[in-house]
């Protein structure tokens, strides 16, 4: 099956710093989503981005489908950005399963 690898596994930032999280996947996909899992365990949708670039406030994401990777950019990080960031992909387009990466655990220090 398709493999999803995220890097780095852990990241510690000072408040105000910028960061880039990476997601590599081993096969072509029809769906790619980024999630933030907050300290209460909730999965918050960040981006639905099978290809191209999107921005939402301090966050932006780029997926290069032909090269099988996606990047999540966090600018001017805040302590509330702390948590685990997951990338998830889906191969089919019939409402199939999402395959999650292992996540990047981000800790933003004041």
């Amino acid at each position, binding site marked *: 099956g398709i493999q999803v690898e995220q890097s780095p596994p852990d990241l510690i930032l000072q408040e105000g710093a910028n960061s880039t999280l990476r997601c590599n996947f081993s096969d072509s996909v*029809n*769906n790619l*989503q980024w*999630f933030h899992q907050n300290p*209460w*365990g*909730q*999965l918050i*949708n960040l981006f*639905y981005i099978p290809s191209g670039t999107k921005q939402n406030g301090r966050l932006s994401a780029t997926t290069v489908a032909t090269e099988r990777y996606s990047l999540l950019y966090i600018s001017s990080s805040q302590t509330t950005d702390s948590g685990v960031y*997951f990338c*998830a992909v889906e191969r089919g*387009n*019939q*409402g*199939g*399963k*999402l*395959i*999650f*990466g*292992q*996540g990047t655990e981000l800790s933003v220090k004041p």
Partner: protein
Amino acid sequence: EPEVTQTPSHQVTQMGQEVILRCVPISNHLYFYWYRQILGQKVEFLVSFYNNEISEKSEIFDDQFSVERPDGSNFTLKIRSTKLEDSAMYFCASSELGAEAFFGQGTRLTVV
């Protein structure tokens, strides 16, 4: 904004007991899913459900598990004869065809 809702948020059960986790998907969505996350690990797909039947299931989803859409709004996951290793966060999700999936807040199941 429409959201997926799950109940209960926490469930503690004795080993060997049956539990039912409940979900109300987003109303115009047709695809429903259950995922599981063991503490500290990644989120794993359990099962997808469409048109009142299972469309895909993982190796984890064995005879111990079952899903049902008992009415027009609820979607349930039943775990029979719970084991200690079933302790996890269980997420329900829903989507339209080939579109973004939205997740509920999760049910934390603890088997003692």
